[in-house]
């Protein structure tokens, strides 16, 4: 088992998969991080050297990810709501914010996530 940014990963797991398990890291950001520390596409967590692990941890701690990023998103929505904007209201009403139709099933994500305190 290997610790990256305080999370325990199995040695068999791909580094790309491990990195993308953090909220705020998708394929694009992941590619950048892996390129920066010379980690190849199919590298497993167990194959990383100690220095690479330290570097990854240091890199992740400088980024806004996980709870910091969630808080940032919630704050941004809160600002909209406090100003009384249409977007803020739509967020609070569990409705789509960007003008989508509301009579079809395309708003399931908005229904699920948009709350007074946004989920996820």
């Amino acid at each position, binding site marked *: 088992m290997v610790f990256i940014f305080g999370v325990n990963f199995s040695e068999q797991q791909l580094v790309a998969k491990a990195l993308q398990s953090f909220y705020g890291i998708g394929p694009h950001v992941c*590619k950048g991080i892996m*390129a*920066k520390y*010379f*980690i*190849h*596409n*199919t590298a497993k967590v167990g194959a990383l050297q100690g220095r690479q692990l330290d570097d990854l941890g240091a890199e992740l701690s400088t980024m806004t990810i996980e709870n910091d990023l969630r808080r940032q998103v919630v704050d941004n929505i809160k600002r909209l709501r406090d100003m009384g904007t249409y977007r803020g209201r739509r967020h609070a009403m569990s409705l789509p914010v960007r003008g989508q139709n509301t009579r079809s099933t395309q708003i399931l994500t908005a229904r699920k996530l948009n709350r007074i305190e946004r989920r996820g």
Partner: protein
Amino acid sequence: MSTPICLRCLRRSLFPPISSRAAKLAATRAAFSTTPSRSANPPKKQSTTAKRDTSKTKSLRLSKNKRVVTGRPPAPGERKALRKRVVLSNSNALEVAGLEDFTAENVRRATLLRQLEGRVVGFGDATVNVLRALEGFKPTQGWGLFRRPASLVRAETVELGEMMQTLKGEKSMLSLLLAGERGSGKSVLQLQAMAVAYLQGWIIVHIPEAKDITIGHTAFQPVKTTDGQTIYIQPQYTAELLDKIAQANRGILSDLRLSRQHQLPIPIQSNISLARLVELGANDPQLAWPIWQALWAELTAPSQPDKQGLHRPPVLVSADGVDHIMRNSAYIDVETKPIHSHELAIVRDFTALLAGKTALPNGGMVLAAISKSTAANSPTFAAAHGHPRQFARASRDRRPKLPEWNPYDSLDQRVAEVMENVEVKNVDGLSKQEARSVMEYYARSGMMRGTITEGLVSEKWTLAGGGLVGELEKGAVRARF
């Protein structure tokens, strides 16, 4: 002027409708009934449609639709091992009587080698072990169909063998690129060259699949060269390559020893044998790169035959599927730009040899083969081996003016420079005589029935795209009707 009440409605209101009269009648009749119809239970609706049982859905039952539950899932690496497994023997095939082998004697003398032309010749046990260690045999080739590994000595084989004798004698080097259709026998020709090299006492360095270097599946790290360039070393891959070199050349390398001091991260004996040196690198990926460099420094050092362990034999460097190293690799640099294959350290060393920038002072040959079954898109390289002479001229004045050149393709300057002086050898189909010889071998192995007639040979030769040996094997031995 309209009336306040509609005339028609007025008329209706005067005469009550018949239906209401009938209803009144029914109500009066009901008063006499002892069992009013309303108090009876309503009749049950007959269910016309049977309730659908969701647990038993009707679907087409085919045996292939059933998921077979096996005991355990394959362990990591098991499927790959099965895919890469090379079978070199078929106990059901007949032993071919009088099958000659490549021996040290018949590959060293040109006349004997020429006598073998057009015949199928086997590989001896020691040669097979070396070729296996070098991963010269490929799982897609039909070695597993016959009793023991054997191959046809074709005109190109003899030509290569003679060339190697000359190179050894003159201590000169040659770069050769084998091109040709899929199944034309490029890889087997390379294998034969390796067998000949082994029997002539050469050192063999073989990259079995150039694709493995560039697809980004092994670890890499940057290093600075002395001239300030950044190149990328691949410790694990280098260690594996050193392991192959150690296994295949153990006999020769254990007789050679270091000729000078090298800058290595660990202290080593000054008179250590090259076999031991290579093994050190093979066992530790972190040492692999410096030891690879030290090995090349030793192999390209001038031979001193009068001193024990300091003679240096000729070297055969070969790589299969080189079109994969003539383009960008799958690795990316810090700025997430693709790394060109020629910036990878092993490829850089190989291309320097191929282009003749690195000399082999003790004689040697660089033998590259393209791959048509896993061909990578590399327009510059394709033009270079498709039209070598025009290409050399065009790339010299840096304006490719070939009629075949697609103007929307950019010229890869690195590839162009490497390919400028490489001799291209086109491997074509077999002659009918050679095809007959191969088919007779199939028949004598019991893998092809019927008598080998002129007509049959002609038919198979034509169906095999003009004697492409891979297709010939497919049509004659593998095909089951």
